[in-house]
């Protein structure tokens, strides 16, 4: 077991445990914070596997943006801060969720592990670095890349069109 394996096991365990805590805790804010830990350590997993850019994107987009959005969503709704017995998930739903989640994980593990268990990758000399990814994004994937700018634009316009409440200083545009 190399140092890399050891670090990966540690970071991976943190990811998995905090993900479990995120879905089992009864405090909705705690769930968001555990999600933060989980997504952050997933970025660590990517780093250990030698994919700097993916780790960075994970940090920027998931830890930075997605968790911020989750917290904002909590603030913008009338979500209660503490655990509430009347809206908490009933036991049978929790049991069903455990069964479903477990079954899906088992299915995926049964599918992926035998296929990829013997795969070998040289992590010290990764095939793709940031430069290669940039060349692929701007060379091969131009079209989806430019479409993404449209998607971001639509997201912003939709957000503003929906959330605009009053006509404050609407006259300015006239």
């Amino acid at each position: 077991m190399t140092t890399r394996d050891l670090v990966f096991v540690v970071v991976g365990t943190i990811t998995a445990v905090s993900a479990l805590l995120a879905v089992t805790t009864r405090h909705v804010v705690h769930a968001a914070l555990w999600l933060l830990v989980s997504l952050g350590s997933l970025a660590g997993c990517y780093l250990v596997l030698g994919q700097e850019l993916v780790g960075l994107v994970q940090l920027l987009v998931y830890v930075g943006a997605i968790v911020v959005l989750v917290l904002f969503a909590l603030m913008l709704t009338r979500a209660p801060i503490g655990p509430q017995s009347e809206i908490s998930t009933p036991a049978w739903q929790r049991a069903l969720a455990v069964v479903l989640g477990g079954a899906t994980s088992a299915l995926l593990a049964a599918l992926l592990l035998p296929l990829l268990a013997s795969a070998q990758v040289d992590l010290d000399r990764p095939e793709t670095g940031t430069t290669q990814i940039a060349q692929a994004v701007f060379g091969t994937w131009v079209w989806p890349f430019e479409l993404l700018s449209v998607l971001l634009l639509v997201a912003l316009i939709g957000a503003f069109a929906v959330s605009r409440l009053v006509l404050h200083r609407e006259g300015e545009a006239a």
Partner: protein
Amino acid sequence: MSEPYVPILFMLGLGFAFAALSVFTSLVVGPKRYNRAKLEAYECGIQPSPQAAGGGRIPIKYYLTAMLFIVFDIESVFLYPFAVAFNKLGLFALVEMVLFILTVFVAYAYVWRRGGLDWD
């Protein structure tokens, strides 16, 4: 490959250790004199309420702030590899990136003109 991360990990550990040490030291050596005002959240003199003012909802404006942050956050995700590989990419890639930024800025101009950036 992994050598550049050793100093970073070292710094990370140092940071955690410093924080833990500070908290621990103040627990041990700090004086403990409690009163009601000190136990309140923020100690700012305003009574904390379980919900935000006006119907228990934080103004929807903050949603636009979050969306603005996210949109430009994702834009920066693409700027990073572009900047790293700039010398190997041609003029075509520069045009692509400019188009990308211009498209997103159209939305920005719209939000700005319609008063989305004013905090009344």
